[in-house]
C-alpha cells in the first residue's frame, strides 16, 4: 500500500513537472504566480448560463479569475468527499451543502436563490398538464435518483395519486445524470417531456415551454452555497458566496428566472 502511494505520488510529480497544470483543481498553482488569483467554483448544472454571465464581472479589482465547474450537485459533492477542493460549492438544494457541513467539509451554507419546478415540453407539444403524462407511449426523461432534480421529481410523483404517479414512472425512459441531459433529450425529441427547473426552460430561448405544476405538489426548491474548508482562496470564496445574494451574480440569477430567498 505504501509503495503504491509512493509510486502514485511519483507519477503525480512527474505529471506536475510536465508543466500542464491547467486542468487540475488549483492544487499547485494558486498563489504561486502571485498576481493572478484563481477561484474555483463548483456549481449545479442548472446555474450554468447565469453564472457564466456574471463570473467575468467578479472581483475585477482583485484580479481574480473565476473558474466554473458545472455538474450535478451530487457529483460535485462526491468529488469534495473524494478530496477535490474547489473554493465554493453551490448546489441546487440545501441538503447536500448541509450534509457536507455536517461532515466538516464546508463552512456554514447560505441559501441564495429559489427555483421553480416545472414540466418541460417542446414548444409545439400537445401535452398540457401532468395528467397527460400517464398516457401510454409518452416518453419521459427525469433526473437520476441521486441528483437533486431527480429527488425533487420523485418527491413530486409521491404526492400525486398513487396510480397516477406509477403510470408516470412507467413512462420514464431515461434517468439522466444532470439537468442538461433531460433538457437535451426533450429538445431533441428523444423524450416527450421532462421535469426540470423553470430556469432551464428559459435558457432554451423558446424551444421548450414550461408547464406549471399544481402548487399543492410542487416541491420547494432552494439553492445553497458554501465556502469549502481548506479552500485555497477563502477570502474571494466568501466574497463570491456573498455576491450570490447581492451583486452581479444575484442580478444574473434573477435574469435567468431564479427567485430570491425570503429572509
Amino acid at each position, binding site marked *: 500500500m505504501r509503495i503504491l502511494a509512493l509510486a502514485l505520488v511519483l507519477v503525480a510529480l512527474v505529471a506536475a513537472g510536465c508543466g500542464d497544470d491547467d486542468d487540475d483543481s488549483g492544487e499547485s498553482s494558486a498563489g504561486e504566480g502571485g498576481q493572478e488569483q484563481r477561484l474555483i467554483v463548483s456549481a449545479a448544472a442548472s446555474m450554468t448560463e447565469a453564472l457564466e454571465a456574471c463570473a467575468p464581472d467578479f472581483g475585477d479589482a482583485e484580479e481574480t479569475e473565476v473558474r466554473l465547474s458545472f455538474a450535478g450537485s451530487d457529483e460535485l459533492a462526491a468529488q469534495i468527499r473524494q478530496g477535490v477542493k474547489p473554493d465554493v460549492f453551490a448546489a441546487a438544494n440545501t441538503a447536500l451543502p448541509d450534509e457536507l457541513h455536517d461532515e466538516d467539509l464546508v463552512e456554514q451554507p447560505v441559501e441564495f436563490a429559489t427555483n421553480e419546478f416545472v414540466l418541460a415540453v417542446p414548444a409545439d407539444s400537445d401535452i398540457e398538464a401532468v395528467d397527460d403524462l400517464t398516457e401510454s407511449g409518452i416518453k419521459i426523461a427525469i433526473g437520476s435518483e441521486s441528483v437533486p432534480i431527480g429527488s425533487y421529481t420523485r418527491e413530486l410523483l409521491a404526492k400525486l395519486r398513487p396510480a397516477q404517479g406509477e403510470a408516470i414512472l412507467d413512462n420514464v425512459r431515461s434517468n439522466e445524470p444532470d439537468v442538461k*441531459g433531460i433538457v437535451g433529450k426533450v429538445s431533441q425529441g428523444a423524450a416527450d417531456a421532462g421535469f426540470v427547473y423553470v430556469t432551464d426552460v428559459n435558457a432554451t430561448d423558446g424551444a421548450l415551454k414550461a408547464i406549471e405544476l399544481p402548487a399543492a405538489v410542487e416541491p420547494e426548491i432552494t439553492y445553497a452555497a458554501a465556502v469549502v474548508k481548506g479552500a485555497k482562496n477563502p477570502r474571494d470564496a466568501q466574497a463570491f458566496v456573498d455576491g450570490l445574494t447581492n451583486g452581479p451574480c444575484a442580478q444574473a440569477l434573477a435574469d435567468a428566472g431564479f427567485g430570491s430567498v425570503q429572509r
Partner: protein
Amino acid sequence: MRRAAASRRIPWFPVLLAVCLTATLLFLTLPVVAIFVDRSPVELIDSLGEPGALDALWLSLRTTAISIAVILAIGTPAAYLLATRSFRGRALVITLIELPLVLPPAVAGIALLAAVGPAGILGGTIDALGIELSLTTAGVVVALTFVASPFYVRQAVAAFAAVDERLLDASRTLGASEARGFLRVMIPTALPGLAAGTALALGRALGEFGATLMFAGSFQGITQTVPLAIYDRFSTNFESALALSAVLVAVSGALLLSVKLVAGAEAMGGWDAADTRAAR
C-alpha cells in the same frame, strides 16, 4: 586512462529508455491496480448484488456482443474490398471510416442524434419504418457500433493487405472462386490481425459512455450499460461503482487475453506486424 574514461561513461540512453518505460507502466497500471486494492474482494462481490449492477453487466454484454457481431459481419467484407482493390477515392474512404476513432464521445453522441435521432436528418425515415432508436437498447447498439467499428475495420484492412497475394492467386489457379478464396484463404491467414481488431473493438464497445448517454439515455436494464451505471453510482455508492469498475476491468482484460490466446502468439504483435508488412 582510456579504460577509466569508458567505465565512467554512463549509458544514459538505455537508462532513459528504462525510466520512460517504467513511468509509462506505473502511470497506466497504478489507477487500475487501485480499483482492486481499495476494497477487499469480498466487499466488491457483495456490492455487485445490489439491484441494477447485474442488470448493467448483462446489458453491456448483450449490446457489446450484438454490435461486435454486426461489425464482424459487415466490416470484414468491407475491409477485404478496401485491402484488395485500388480505386479512386480509396484513401478518402479509409479516412472517413477511421474518423470516429478521433471523435470525442460527446461529438459521437451529438452526431448520432443529428443523424438518426427523432429530430435528425434520417429521423423521419426511421420513424416511418417503425424503428425506435433513442432511449432504447437498439440505440445503445447503434452507439457502440458507431464508435467501435473503426477499430476493427482499420485493423482488418491492414491484416488483409498483409496476406501474401500469391496465396490468393494459388487458390484462384486451383479453380476457387473469389468468395471461396476470401473464406478459405484470406480469413484464416489474416485471423491474428482480425482477432486483434476484434479485441480493440470489444474494449471500446464495453467502455462506451458519452455517446450512449447522449443518444440512448440511461435506464436500468434498457440503456444503462456498465459505464453509465458506474457514473450513476459514483456520487451515492462509491463501493458499487468500484465493484462494477473492477468487473469491467476483469471482463475486458479476460476478453483481450482470450482473443490473443485464440489467435495464437502471433496476435500479440498482430497489429504492428501487420502494419509493417502492409507498408512494405
